[in-house]
């Protein structure tokens, strides 16, 4: 039964990868990475039970906690980039 969920997650990871490679906009890629992260958390929690070592859920917990940082870093990157561009435009005017 775990195998079915694992396979579904695998296929979804593949689909998210398709989205990340195709794009087209950078936001699509961020979305794909975020989705990939959630799917990895699910995959790791299910596989921990599939292999019979539920004490390894720490790994999924780590991802559940810090995947968010990547998205925020991207957000901050966009924000500082738009500020920089505005400043450059102001300077050349």
């Amino acid at each position, binding site marked *: 039964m775990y195998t079915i969920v694992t396979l579904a997650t695998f296929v979804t990871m593949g689909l*998210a990868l398709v989205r990340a*490679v195709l794009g087209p906009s950078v936001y699509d890629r961020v979305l794909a990475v975020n989705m990939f992260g959630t799917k990895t958390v699910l995959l790791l929690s299910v596989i921990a039970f599939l292999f019979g070592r539920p004490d*390894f859920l720490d790994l999924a*917990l780590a991802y559940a906690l*810090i995947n968010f940082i990547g998205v925020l870093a991207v957000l901050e990157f966009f924000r500082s980039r738009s500020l920089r561009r505005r400043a450059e435009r102001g300077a050349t005017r």
Partner: protein
Amino acid sequence: MTVLFGVFLLSLLVITAIAIVRTENLFVAVMLMGIASLLIAANFFILDAADVALTEAAVGAGISTVLFLSALALTSERERSPTSRKLLSFTVVVVAALVVIYATFDKPRFGDPEAPAQTHVAPWYLEKTPEYIDIPNVVTAVLGSYRAYDTLGEVFVVFTAGVGVLFLLGPGTGAAGQRTGPTDPGAGLRHHLIPRVVGRVLIPFILLFGLYVQFHGEYGPGGGFQAGALIAAAIVLYALLEGERQALRVLPERLLVGLMAGGALLYAGVGIAGMALGGNFLDYSVLAGNPVKGQQLGILLIEAGVGITVTGTLLGIFHAFAARER
């Protein structure tokens, strides 16, 4: 089944790697690196390396993306020059790949218990750890005690890399500070209310989890390297939300440099304490009356040293990059 899972994940990894090399947009390459890191961590997990997977998770999910993005913000987002000597490089790479693949036919089959790697020292480590050190996690035992020299060296490499980054990008080098725009990029995401509220909820839990990983490293996957990266990730999250300057106010630069050096010194100090008590360098058996207890105490102390140095170094590097931006 493990083999099939591995085959699937590795195929995705190859596709990701090729996409990373092909894209000319460096931002996209960094995003795809994030996916590659997740795939690698899942692979490590399937290959029974829970500790390694946790390290990859702690480093790859937060710190690595943040560092690459700050470097991109300081340089450029696009590759401007076309690929050079494309055909020649491609030929070299394909020939080399074929040679390596040809060499793999002599390798032992995947998972072979009779492979040379499995038959020499590894059984000894597995057999003797309950007797000599008596902790369940053999990886921590090997890392902290049997091969403590190695780990000491690695800690000093991390320390040196951190010092190198501070020398390159620290205050007073090059053009830093000359670019004073009308904006304040050091302010962070203060105006994004929802991420800020949720992020602030998460920070204490990440710190708590980091401490759990640090001190539970003898019993489950974890240890100083993972914990250091996790705690650094929590502080980086704080810096992203509240602005980098506020984070520096909480953990000033001096303190970070102190942590960097202090952790490495604690590690080396444990080794010297062992010598002072009549043992060899990094022999913990003499630290307590009972050799097994001494080993456990020694591992606890050096893991703490590793955690402190890794936290200090990663945060020092992050601040060095972030300070350039403002």
